[in-house]
């Protein structure tokens, strides 16, 4: 037992030496996460702000002007033009000078004054779906707030006690991320993508390299067991994955103010399970890949792309085709994204996230079994 630990220690030390000697690898595991974090959080912002908006006020009353001021005051909408006819909406959309048009019909003020529901048309250019979706939500929310305010005014005028009605809340509200800051949403997901890259890619490559260099054969004539080699290979990458997790969490909190609302240990447990599941995938790749290049490409296909596309990181999972939704269950990233966002944003802990943690556990075990069967078959020579 002691000699097994000595051997595992030797592997771990050696792996760290490889890492220290290879600037590219060091770059891949330390610098890349930071760059990706900054790139995603700053450049590829899903935040929607200053949406160019054209207002067609057909009512031209004090009330309608107050309503328009709401749009002008919002940082979300940027009122770039005022118009008097519907034709101007088409022109503005065609010229891309506006993406949202707010049309206030004639009689707006009169309808409101009579206590009825007034209609406001909000036209949205749907060619940019994210902006369209968010604009829609915002204008609805804005209308809600406005109507709420009107209700209060009306209640005051009628001498009604508002508290008896209860506070009116806008019905559309973004929970857990009230400001809809995309960095809040991105960083917990990004952590999963980065963990996936670091783990799968590196373990996939590290075992193939051992074979390519012929060092695998030297290890075979030693008393070292296959499982010791695996553990020795997994430990450094587990540590590195944890360091990356800490790095992203730290940067996310300090630079982007991402909240960490839930139980950190649930996140750590989830990360550990996810790392093991991903390393298992790496081992499977190692077992089947004949060369370094193949291993790299396979790792890219099996780890990176699903973590990016099928995890809920970039696209909401209920918005992708049903077939791909099923495919997404084949990869551990989707569970981890749920865990990560749950802990960071929703303040979730073990009680809420145990199904995902269980799924990751099963996944990790299945991967380790598959990889050792494949690796064993290969070792049988």
């Amino acid at each position, binding site marked *: 037992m002691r*000699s097994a630990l*000595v*051997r595992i*220690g*030797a*592997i771990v*030390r*050696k792996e760290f*030496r*490889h890492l220290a*000697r*290879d600037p590219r690898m060091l770059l891949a595991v330390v610098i890349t996460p930071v760059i990706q974090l900054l790139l995603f959080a700053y450049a590829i912002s899903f935040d929607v702000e200053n949406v160019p908006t054209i207002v067609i006020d057909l009512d031209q009353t004090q009330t309608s002007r107050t309503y328009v001021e709401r749009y002008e005051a919002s940082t979300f909408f940027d009122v770039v033009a005022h118009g008097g006819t519907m034709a101007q909406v088409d022109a503005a959309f065609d010229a891309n000078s506006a993406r949202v048009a707010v049309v206030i019909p004639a009689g707006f003020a009169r309808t409101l004054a009579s206590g009825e529901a007034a209609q406001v048309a909000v036209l949205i250019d749907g060619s940019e779906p994210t902006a369209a979706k968010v604009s829609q939500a915002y204008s609805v929310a804005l209308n809600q707030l406005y109507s709420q305010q009107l209700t209060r005014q009306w209640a005051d005028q009628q001498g009604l006690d508002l508290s008896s009605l209860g506070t009116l809340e806008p019905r559309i509200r973004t929970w857990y991320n009230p400001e809809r800051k995309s960095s809040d949403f991105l960083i917990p997901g990004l952590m999963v993508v980065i963990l996936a890259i670091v783990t799968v890619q590196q373990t996939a490559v590290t075992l193939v390299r051992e074979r390519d*260099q*012929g*060092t695998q*054969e*030297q*290890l*075979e*004539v*030693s*008393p*070292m067991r296959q499982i010791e080699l695996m553990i020795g290979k997994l430990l450094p990458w587990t540590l590195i994955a944890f360091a990356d997790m800490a790095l992203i969490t730290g940067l996310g909190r300090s630079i982007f103010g991402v909240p960490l609302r839930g139980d950190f240990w649930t996140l750590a447990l989830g990360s550990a399970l996810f790392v093991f599941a991903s390393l298992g995938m790496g081992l499977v790749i190692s077992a089947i890949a004949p060369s370094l290049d193949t291993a790299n490409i396979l790792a890219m296909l099996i780890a990176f792309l699903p973590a990016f596309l099928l995890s809920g990181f970039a696209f909401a999972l209920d918005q992708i085709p049903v077939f791909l939704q099923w495919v997404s269950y084949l990869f551990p990233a989707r569970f981890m994204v749920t865990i990560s966002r749950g802990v960071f944003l929703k303040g979730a802990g073990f009680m809420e996230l145990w199904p995902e943690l269980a799924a990751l556990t099963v996944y990790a075990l299945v991967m380790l079994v598959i990889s050792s069967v494949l690796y064993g078959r290969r070792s*049988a*020579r």
Partner: protein
Amino acid sequence: MTATTTPQGVGAIRAHALRRTFGEVVAVAEVDLDIPAGAVFGLLGPDGAGKSTLIRMLATVLRPDSGTAEVFGHSVTAERDQVTPRIGYMSQRFSMYPDLSVMENLEFFATVRGVGRADRRTRAKALLESMGLDEFTTRQAQFLSGGMKQKLMLATTLMHEPDLLLLDEPTTGVDPVSRREFWRILAGLHREGRTVLVATPYMDEAERCTQVAFLDRGRIQRSGSPDEIKAQVPGQLLEVSLPEPRAAMAVLADVPGVTSVHLLGDVVRVLWDADADPEAALTGALAAAGRSGRVREVAPDMETVFAYLAEASGAADEEQAS
């Protein structure tokens, strides 16, 4: 366990009907081996003869299809754990970590092999000094010269003091000076009582072995001590010096009594197996073809012996085929 505890004359390697195929290709076919402890056993043969396959089976890294092999009485398949501590295996290609230094490689493999810290230190120092690598302990393995790389690999396989060394073409691609140096080290190991099985395509290295086997197309064609092998070649070896030796070969080959003709540098080597005086017969035949040359008898070297044996076995195969 040290080399000196192994009594002389006890079998280091015993193999019976060892066979291994890769798909359709028969790499090793029914090989029998009996190598006594303390021998320097040369496994000779051209590329693709099956030398590496045979060594890898004995080193337990390749499973035989059939047949048995024992190292110091332990089966290489059923008792791997008894075999591996006693062997040092040096594969044909450079198999150290290129990005680790000389000392780091030595340390790593020795640790994995279960060599204690104190032993690692003293042995590494002694081995590196004896191999002239002590100046390069911090150099990354990838930046070593070819000869130094081979010496590093040998040093690595010696760190756990194995009784049997399995060396797969350790001097291939190494300059002549380093080759001599390498064999000087092997001679030292031989004196310490270790058994060495060394594969080589260089026939001149066979002279330095206590025993040799000639492997061709997966089969051992000849084996014995170098002297025994030489004795298997009938007749005497003659060297003919003349201008345009290549053109004269056809003439010499047609002389009755000549069994084999080879070009060696700028002389022709002729194997003569007849009662007649070879010098007279050869100069006579050359004169008849309008040529002249000087003939002298030389002691047969392994190169010629194996060239002849390979030719003979090739001819025998052709006969069988037809």
